[in-house]
């Protein structure tokens, strides 16, 4: 897979599109997806690098373009948090901002893909391990915030006393339990699914290249046209998914910290 040219690879791939394939290594009895880890590292370097660069360039005077974008993002998140939770939510701002930026950078790696099973720099958010990790990082503080806000008793009561009358508490506990378990899983799967399917679309578009009518390589033309079109669309999807993840984080904290349900 040393060639970065989409067409010959697509001919190879056309026979067999594999889903969710990773470069795996076993260590201490655990399996690690090396390609995801490598891409995560790249995303970390970019995000932290941008952040530190920004920190060194940050000025209270006329901001540069990068600073302006960051400030707009941070301001938007702060406004959102302030509107939903109020001043108590200030601690969530760094989490939401970091989530958004990190997921955005990770998602946009997909535009570098060529539609093969293993990309040089895959979107790490296309691996369930990263999205689930992020979901845990969000949902555990959400529950801690809920316990802090309601007290341990109020926290438990919150799950059994509503939405139905108290004597139906097993039903309440079941419904609320499913909802709470579903939160991190849906949060993780939504992002993962979008990125995985984005990669699959690239693979399918690449596979089109094998489509010839007699000797006319019509599939090659289709691949060349559709690949950038899809990637542009995918960039938008990546931004929207990053935004949704950050927004849902804020909303989960809002639900956890509001007393009235």
């Amino acid at each position, binding site marked *: 897979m040393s060639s970065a040219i989409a067409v010959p690879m697509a001919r190879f791939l056309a026979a067999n599109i*594999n*889903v*969710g*394939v*990773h*470069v*795996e290594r076993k*260590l*201490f009895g*655990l*399996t*690690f*997806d090396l390609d*995801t*880890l490598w891409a*995560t*590292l790249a995303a*970390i370097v970019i*995000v*932290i690098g941008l*952040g*530190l660069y*920004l*920190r060194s360039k*940050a*000025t*209270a*005077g006329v*901001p540069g373009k990068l*600073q302006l974008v*960051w*400030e707009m993002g*941070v*301001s938007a998140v702060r406004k959102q948090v302030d509107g939903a939770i109020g001043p108590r939510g200030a601690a969530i*701002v*760094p*989490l939401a*901002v*970091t989530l958004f*930026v*990190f997921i955005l950078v990770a998602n946009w790696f997909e535009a570098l893909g060529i539609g093969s*099973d*293993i990309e040089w720099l895959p979107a*790490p958010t296309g*691996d*369930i*391990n*990263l999205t*689930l*990790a*992020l979901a*845990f*990082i969000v949902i555990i503080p959400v529950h801690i915030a809920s316990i802090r806000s309601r007290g341990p008793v109020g926290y438990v009561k919150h799950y059994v006393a509503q939405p139905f009358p108290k004597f139906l508490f097993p039903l309440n506990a079941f419904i609320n339990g499913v909802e709470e378990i579903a939160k991190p899983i849906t949060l993780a799967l939504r992002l993962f699914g979008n990125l*995985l399917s984005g990669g699959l679309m690239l693979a399918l578009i690449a596979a089109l290249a094998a489509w010839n009518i007699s000797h006319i390589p019509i599939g090659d033309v289709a691949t060349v046209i559709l690949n950038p079109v899809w990637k542009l669309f995918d960039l938008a999807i990546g931004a929207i998914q990053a935004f949704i993840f950050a927004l849902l984080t804020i909303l989960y904290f809002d639900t956890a910290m509001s007393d009235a349900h």
Partner: protein
Amino acid sequence: MPLASSNFLVPNGTLIVEVVAFLIVLFVIGRYVLPVLNKTLEERQEQIRTALEAADAARIEADETRSQRQGILDEARQQAREIVGQANKVAEGVAAQAEERGQQEYERLVRAAETDIALARQRAVDEVSGQLGALVMSVARQVIGREIDAASHQALIDEAVAALKASSDTTAARSQG
């Protein structure tokens, strides 16, 4: 090497590394980047607020200056009007005075002229009347052929001179009237 044997929907050890990795990013961004960014944001807001306040103050000052200037202008205009009015009044007074003085001078001149005329006429009449007695007597001598004694006929002469004087006075009065 791609291994399709494991289920891609089931997390593996990568999850743990990813948790740690993201926490590192969160730490760096939350600790070192966002505070700086927030500080610059607040500083800029402060700067903007100060600048707006300064602009407000400047506008108020400008308004005050403008109203002051307007007041001074109004006052100056009022004063100018007064000065012009006074000047007009003075000029009218001067003209009236000049006219009056001219009239007085004219009248004085006319009066002086009249007096001179009257005096001259009087002198002429006196002169003529002084010589008239001798003239009458010489005429009468030639007419009656003898010496008329001026002393003995003084009364007659005086009567004639008085009659002549009276007639010349009447003429002068008529010409003056």
